[in-house]
Structure formats: C-alpha cells, structure tokens
C-alpha cells in the first residue's frame, strides 16, 4: 500500500500544527465559533449531539496493521473505548475533547494518517472498491488513481470553499462495489479497444434529499488527462453551482438544472483551456504510486482447499469470504454487524485484534467497506480456520455478509445532531427479529438513515428505512427496490410510515411476501423488480 515520502509526511505534520494553532485561537477567543466551525470541519471535527466527533480519513478504505492498531489505541486513549466505521470507509470517534484533538492528529500523523477534508464544503476522502487489488474482475487496481486524486484534492487552493461537500469514488471493474454512480464524481477506470487505460467520468450523482444517479459525461478520458478533467468538472461547479440554497447546492442539482449536455459542454470547454495550463502530474508520478500497490508476495502453489468439517466455520466461509484472483488465497469480510449490535462499531480491543490478524495473515493490510465492515484482502486458505477462531473468540465471526442482518445504519438520533429519528435501535430490532432466518432470506441489503441526508444510504437499499420526525415522535418510512452497483436504482417509498415496532413488522411482511412468491434463484430485489411495488404494498398494508 501507499507509503508517505518526506513531502507527504511534512504535509500532515504541518496540518497538525496548523490545527493546533486554530484550536489555540478558538480557546483564546481570537476567533468566533462561526469562524472556527469551517476550520474544524475541514479537519473532520464536528460538534455532535453529545460531544465533539472526530472523523478520521481512511483513503480509499485501505489501512495497514500499524494504522489499524493506532485507531484502536485512539479509541481507548481519547475516546470511550470504541470507534464507528462509516459508510464512506472512514472511522469516527464520538466523545472527543477539543483540547485533545491536536494530539490525536499528531498520533495519526505518526502512522501516516489524518482527518483532512473529512467534512466541510471541499473534496472529501475518495472512496474505492474494498476488494481492490484482490478482485478477479478488476481491469487494474483502482487505488493508485484514487491516491493521485487524494494528493490533487488535498488543500486544493481553488476548491476548498465549494458550494457544498464533494464526494468522489474510483472503481475499476464493471461490478460496482463502491456505489460509484451515487457520488458527485464517480470514476471508472476502463480499458478501451486499443488496450489503453482511461477514466470514465460520471458526474452529478448523490443521495440526500434529492437522490440522483450520475450520468456518464465522458466515457474515456485518457489517463494522463484525468486530473485535468476533474479540475474542469470542479471549476464549472465552483463557479456555477447554486449558493443561494444549501439544499440545492450539490453538483447533482447543477447538472440537473443545466442538463447533462450543457454541463458537459462547459466542462469540455474548461478542460480544453486547462490542458494548456500543464496541471497534470506526469505518468511517472502514477507509476511511482503504482509501485506501492504491487501484488504482495503471494505463495505460489499455496494449497487451494479448505477443511470444512466445522459447520460454523463452513457457514462463515460461504457467507463472508470471496474468491481471490490468486489460487490458494481468499478475501475475508469481517462483519461488524453482530445480532443486536450497533452496525459499524468496534471496540479498541477488537480493532487491535483485527490489526494483528492483518499483520499475521493478510500481508499487513485491511480495508474498510462502505457497508461498515472490515476486509482482510489476502488470506491463505490454509490459515483461514485459525483466523476464524480468533475472530470467533472476539465477537467478530457473524456470518451475515449482504444478508438482512448486515444492515447499514447511520448513527441516527442517538449521536447525530442532524438526525430526526434513531437508526440503531431499528437495526438492532431487525437483526434480532430475523435471527436464524438470514440464510432462508438470502441476499438482502437493508439500509437505514435517521434523516433525509441519507448517510445510511436508504435510497440504495433493497429495503430502505428513513427516519422522520412526525410531530415530535419518531416515524419510519419504508422504501423498496433500491440498489447500488452496475444496475443502480433508487428505492420507492411504500406508503405511510410506521412507528418503531411497526417498521420491523412491515419489513417482516415484505420478506414473508418475497419468500412466498420468489421464483428459483431470485433474490428479494429480483422478485421486487419482477412483481413491482403493488403486490408488496398490498402485503405490507393489507
């Protein structure tokens, strides 16, 4: 994985001192909260419902063992013994003291980490495919391109006060595992008929209160012009994106209001101009970065068999492990969704356990997934049972990947000052209600947001749940038919909302209807797409 050189390290070190100075000025009263707020946000520090919350960047979701260990240590040293992995492949801590924040950033910098641009109206942490470098279906490893974007977007002088936040994702396979088309810019690295590598640009997607699927505005930007093209996309947005209404300020509204063709025309004009400005890093820089993402030293001829005699282990293998491009290896997903647990939460001790397992069994590498789980990308099949036993002993062996218990949930009103309703208790009740029936129901992506901002990706859930405030009480709307990936679709609201117990019952009626009506091999989503909303609605509301 990528390693900092002296330039990268000097950048994060300087950032620590800059933020230390900003905190000093705030505590001394030299700047107001109104002035400090965008500064702390640009460093991922929010003031949440109960305390300050710090969001730490995990660029394209990739972590080393030492980095993961530090995340566990920070949870114990500065927080209350746990952290929360987010839908943008980051981690956040819920109980941070402002006066500690500079020291936390210094600890992070010591392992080449930071909290730069994890919030604010700037280019946020770039996300990617959690199986990058391991997936059999990728054209190339997308992470070097994401790292190029990380450096370009870090402290970009022109784009640090955009109309609104700006999220980018980079993938390199047709199977989209990063919800790429639901980002402000989604980039798919592709190979053309001539065998050349390029970038397809999808611009103007997003969830939130106006969910939109990004259209492709350029199917092949030569790879040695990718940064210049991104700069053109951003400049048009910075100049013309709406600033009169916070809720219409995302780039998706600009693309929608101008129309895809007119937005593309403006980008192409700006692109032609910027090509004369020589802002593109040379291919030598991309090659330098690629060097860090070379395959690890896989053992040639590693045994390609598993002893499946332990049924709990066999179930977990079937549900949580994915084929690897290298014979004898397998990609492991550690579910952070125990039945009745808090999706995405892990204790400091659990984080260190996963770090140690990565060091021992996965070439010192981990990934955070947008579904709030952890991946060990390169595990020898011969080591898998020993690894599983350690997970099992630490409450990390829940075998429910992509099943109804593997729920994405935002922190909701238990932690978030923007939320209208709690998300976590709903996730807990659903995972408990369906315990033991996960296998029968099969793949079912259930996603819960506690407000319209959609951090829990409810629009993209096969079943989505949106918490709303109805006259001061929590109320939950049900959506069906959302999906991320190559066949991205947005979920539709079924009808009137439910209270906390009612929404769990409604989910059960929907899944019961699916089980009674599915045809061979159909997932919940397939049955929904075949039958449409009407019969599901009838089953739910009767």
């Amino acid at each position: 994985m990528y390693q900092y050189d002296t330039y990268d390290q000097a950048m994060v070190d300087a950032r620590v001192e800059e933020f230390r100075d900003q905190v000093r000025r705030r505590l001394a009263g030299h700047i107001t909260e109104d002035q400090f707020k965008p500064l702390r946000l640009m460093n991922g520090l929010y003031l949440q419902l109960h305390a300050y919350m710090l969001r730490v960047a995990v660029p394209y979701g990739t972590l080393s063992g030492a980095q993961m260990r530090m995340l566990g240590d920070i949870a114990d040293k500065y927080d209350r013994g746990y952290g929360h992995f987010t839908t943008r492949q980051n981690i956040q801590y819920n109980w941070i003291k402002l006066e500690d924040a500079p020291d936390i950033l210094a600890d992070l910098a010591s392992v080449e980490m930071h909290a730069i641009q994890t919030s604010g109206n700037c280019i946020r942490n770039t996300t990617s495919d959690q199986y990058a470098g391991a997936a059999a279906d990728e054209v190339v490893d997308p992470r070097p391109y994401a790292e190029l974007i990380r450096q370009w977007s870090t402290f970009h002088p022109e784009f640090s006060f955009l109309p609104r936040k700006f999220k980018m994702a980079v993938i390199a396979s047709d199977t989209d595992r990063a919800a790429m088309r639901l980002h402000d810019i989604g980039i798919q690295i592709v190979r053309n008929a001539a065998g050349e590598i390029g970038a397809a640009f999808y611009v103007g997607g997003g969830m939130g209160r106006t969910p939109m699927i990004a259209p492709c505005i350029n199917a092949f930007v030569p790879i040695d012009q990718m940064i210049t093209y991104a700069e053109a996309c951003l400049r048009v947005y910075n100049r013309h994106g709406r600033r009169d209404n916070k809720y219409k300020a995302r780039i998706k509204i600009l693309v929608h209001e101008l129309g895809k063709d007119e937005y593309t025309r403006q980008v192409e004009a700006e692109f032609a101009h910027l090509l004369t400005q020589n802002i593109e890093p040379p291919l030598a820089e991309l090659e330098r970065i690629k060097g860090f993402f070379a395959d690890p030293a896989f053992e040639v001829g590693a045994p390609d068999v598993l002893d499946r005699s332990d049924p709990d282990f066999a179930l977990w293998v079937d549900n949580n492990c994915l084929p690897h491009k290298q014979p004898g290896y397998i990609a492991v997903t550690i579910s952070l969704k125990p039945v009745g647990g808090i999706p995405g939460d892990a204790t400091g001790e659990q984080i260190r356990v996963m770090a140690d397992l990565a060091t021992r069994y996965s070439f010192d590498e981990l990934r955070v997934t947008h579904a709030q789980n952890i991946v060990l990308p390169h595990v020898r099949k011969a080591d898998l049972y020993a690894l599983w036993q350690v997970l099992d002993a630490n409450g990390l062996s829940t075998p429910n990947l992509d099943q109804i218990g593997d729920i994405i949930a935002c922190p909701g009103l238990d932690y978030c000052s923007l939320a209208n309703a709690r998300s976590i208790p709903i996730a807990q009740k659903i995972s408990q209600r369906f315990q033991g029936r996960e296998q029968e129901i099969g793949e079912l992506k259930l996603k819960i947001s506690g407000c319209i901002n959609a951090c829990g990706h409810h629009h993209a859930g096969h079943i989505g749940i949106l918490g709303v405030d109805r006259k001061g009480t929590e109320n939950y709307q049900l959506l069906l038919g959302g999906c991320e990936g190559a066949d991205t679709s947005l979920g539709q609201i079924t009808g009137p909302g439910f209270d906390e117990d009612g929404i769990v019952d409604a989910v059960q009626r929907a899944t019961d209807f699916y089980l009674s009506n599915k045809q061979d091999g159909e997932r919940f989503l397939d049955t929904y797409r075949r039958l449409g909303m009407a019969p599901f609605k009838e089953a739910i509301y009767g």
Partner: protein
Amino acid sequence: MKILTGNDLKTGAVTWWDGVQWSLHVEDAVDVGDHAETILARESAARRVNAAYAIDATRDEQGVRPAHIKERIRALGPTVRPDLTLKPADPDAGNWVI
C-alpha cells in the same frame, strides 16, 4: 418553560444553564423566561459555553423534561449505550426519552 443548553467549549460535554453556571444535569436547568438571548450572548462571548440555544421544556414529577426528543437524548446520552449515559444504573432510563 424556556431552558438553555449548549456544549462545553473544551470538552464538548452537554450542559444546561442552572441560573449561575452550566450544569451537566438537565434537572438543574432553570426557566430563563425572556432572558435567553441576553444570557446566551454573554455566556458565549465569555466562552463558558459553545453552540448554545434555547428550548421549550416542562417540569414534571421526574424533573425538567425538554419538549423535543433530540434534547431528551442530549440530556441522557445515547440510548443504545446505556453504560455511557448519565444514568448507567437505571435500566429504564431509555424510556424517558420517548
């Protein structure tokens, strides 16, 4: 009644205006009547509180009850982590917020 809540500038802890200073406990909150703006301006300028605001509340036999669930959760702590709330020994504390 009108009560005031905010966060401690340094620690971020949720606080409530008790008439003299900022308390961690909502039951200490006092009715500020129509003085909310004056108190908020003075206390924020002195950096004794951060991001403070006024809310409606009632007083019942259990004490001061904020009108909205958001501030009731602020007053207690995360309902999904009773161990981290201000009432870790009370198994029914979570019901108070609903």
